[in-house]
């Protein structure tokens, strides 16, 4: 059983929650600026800083595991790495992805070498530095959490004060400059905040996977909202949720590395968001597509029945299903759908429009022919282009638009091909 009164577990949950909030909030800006990979590069660039800070602390006779010292070292090299990326893209022809790749691999390589040297050198107290690779939330001490909370608080406070500036900077930086905002300084400030967010998570999540905690909550949150403020709050919540969940699982079950566990938790959130978020979610989009296709097929069936009626002026006559198949494929599913909606009646091998079906069919045919007329009068489209366009639009036009077009055309009675535009249902 998970015991939240266990102080270790409480530390773990608290620390990971704080981390999730910070990473989620800052991650939104990283993702919207298309700098997702920057988080990854600078997380890796923090590793040599941790090792150097440890060495420095040992030599100076300080407590080399003092969190402020280690995080300070991480901050320094991560920040240097970031500024190198910015400088490279600005002054050379190296593109950003290449610059990120260079910084990531060079700094991470240096970090691994230092880490190995430290361990081989038998520094008495080096044990535990490797937790910075994959993260070990169980190793969080109260002083670590205090450090994280103070850094995180500072980051979030800054974000709050500069929220509007960052918003316009990310959306339209040229415009921000025209307003006189100090764009260069704001960019450096925002990037520095992202650096702090990454560094705060190193001990918990590790340099290898920290980028996921920056990117994933923001990507998930974007699915659910169209407002930046809401997105930041949601991403913070998602970050906290997956942080707490992942860290708690890793701390209770056989000491799994925390980073991968948190990443799995946040990935689940991303997956759910991609699938089920209204409007942007894959499932809803597919559902809407299917529904539209069903409606289009239904309307085509009604229209075909109406056209057969026009041939002999018996609009509600029973038609053989085989006749309909000659006009267009009358699918069993579509006929079932139409019958269930009460628009057609199926009698043996015949099908006929019901009262409701007649009304609906007349409306569809009217839309189609009015639209054709509109295209031909207003856009001078050739007659042979009219039908195909109208075929697509008749299902999409709403009644308000149709009414306006109908009025503008002076309530016409025939379409460009001379066929009648139905005005109501024949008796």
């Amino acid at each position, binding site marked *: 059983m998970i015991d939240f009164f266990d102080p270790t577990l409480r530390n773990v949950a608290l620390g990971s929650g704080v981390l999730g909030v910070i990473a989620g909030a800052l991650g939104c800006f990283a993702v919207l600026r298309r700098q997702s990979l920057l988080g990854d590069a600078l997380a890796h660039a923090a590793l040599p800083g941790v090792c150097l800070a440890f060495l420095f602390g040992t030599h100076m006779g300080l407590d080399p595991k003092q969190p402020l010292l280690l995080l300070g070292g991480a901050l320094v090299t991560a920040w240097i790495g970031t500024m190198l990326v910015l400088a490279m893209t600005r002054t050379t022809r190296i593109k950003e992805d290449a610059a990120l790749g260079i910084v990531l691999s060079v700094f991470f390589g240096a970090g691994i070498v230092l880490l190995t040297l430290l361990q081989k050198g038998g520094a008495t107290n080096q044990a535990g530095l490797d937790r910075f690779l994959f993260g070990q939330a169980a190793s969080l001490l109260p002083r670590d959490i205090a450090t994280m909370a103070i850094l995180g608080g500072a980051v979030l406070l800054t974000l709050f004060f500069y929220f509007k500036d960052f*918003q*316009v900077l990310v959306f339209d930086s*040229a*415009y921000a400059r*025209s*307003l006189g*905002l100090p764009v260069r300084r704001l960019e450096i400030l925002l990037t520095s905040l992202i650096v702090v967010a990454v560094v705060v998570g190193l001990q918990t999540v590790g340099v290898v996977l920290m980028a996921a905690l920056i990117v994933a909550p923001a990507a998930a949150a974007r699915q659910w*909202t169209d*407002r930046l403020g809401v997105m930041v709050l949601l991403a913070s919540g998602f970050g906290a949720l997956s942080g707490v969940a992942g860290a708690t699982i890793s701390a209770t079950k056989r000491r799994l590395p925390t980073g991968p566990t948190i990443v799995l938790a946040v990935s689940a959130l991303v997956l759910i968001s991609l699938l089920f978020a209204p409007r942007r979610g894959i499932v809803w989009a597919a559902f809407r597509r299917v529904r539209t296709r069903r409606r289009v097929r239904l309307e085509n069936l009604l229209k075909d029945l109406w056209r057969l009626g026009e041939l002999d002026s018996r609009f509600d006559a029973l038609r053989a299903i085989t006749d309909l198949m000659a006009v267009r494929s009358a699918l069993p599913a579509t006929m079932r759908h139409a019958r269930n909606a009460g628009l057609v009646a199926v009698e043996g091998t015949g099908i006929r429009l019901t009262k409701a079906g007649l009304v609906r069919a007349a409306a569809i045919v009217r839309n189609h022919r009015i639209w054709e007329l509109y295209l031909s009068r207003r856009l001078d489209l050739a007659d042979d282009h009219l039908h195909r366009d109208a075929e697509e639009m008749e299902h999409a036009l709403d009644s308000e638009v149709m009414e306006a077009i109908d009025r503008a055309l002076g309530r016409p009675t025939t379409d460009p091909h001379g066929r009648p535009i139905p005005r109501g249902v024949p008796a």
Partner: protein
Amino acid sequence: MSEPAPVEVHDVTVAYHTKPVLWDVDLTLPGGKLVAIVGPNGAGKSTLLKAILNLVPLSSGYVRVFGKPYNEMRQRVAYVPQRESVDWDFPASVLDVVLMGRYGRPGWFRRPRAADRARAEEAIDRVDMTAYRDRQISRLSGGQQQRTFLARALAQDADLYLMDEPFAGVDALTERAIVALLRELRKNGRTVVCVHHDLQTVPEYFDWVTLLNMRLVRSGPVDEVFTAENLHMTYGGRLAILERAATDYLKDARGAARGG
């Protein structure tokens, strides 16, 4: 004393890396006019706007806005960038974007106040977008996105508007609405400078035209400057510009008066 011209560009050269985009451009734009900047692709039209706005470093020369450097006068200038220059999938509503027009003003924490909001809503109303105020900006048509950008500039309540292709990719209705808006601005004594692509509409929409092809070809009232000969000089390729430079050089060498 009359007010200094809204825009003075003095011998400005701009180069990206080593490739020059604007060469030695020298011009003055008068106040209270609708000005079109016209020229072929790659002629440096957008760069000229950016040079006025201090958005690109100048290799040489300087710019004055209402007689002062841009940074001292930016409260009086509003910029409408090209619609394609931003990612419209950004999570913001029309109102959010228009409120950005109020961010340049000094204020504690730059939180928008009620007055800013009122200005933004008024600007949205002026471009006829009130019905779309809370709509996410990616779910707008091209014309509506352009109107949103215009409203953002209007919310700045500036005296000089610099617009980069405001008519690009908009529907006929929006085009008419923009023209009406430009005329209203002119009536209120504002100056509007547009990078413009459609040569046909220049005489109808604008008072003043600046013909540009890396170098300044001509700049002046439309009925004087917008001539077939000048257009040929602008669009006839760089060769034509060089020819003119050569002629001018020879004229100078002969000590003859330089043609205007």
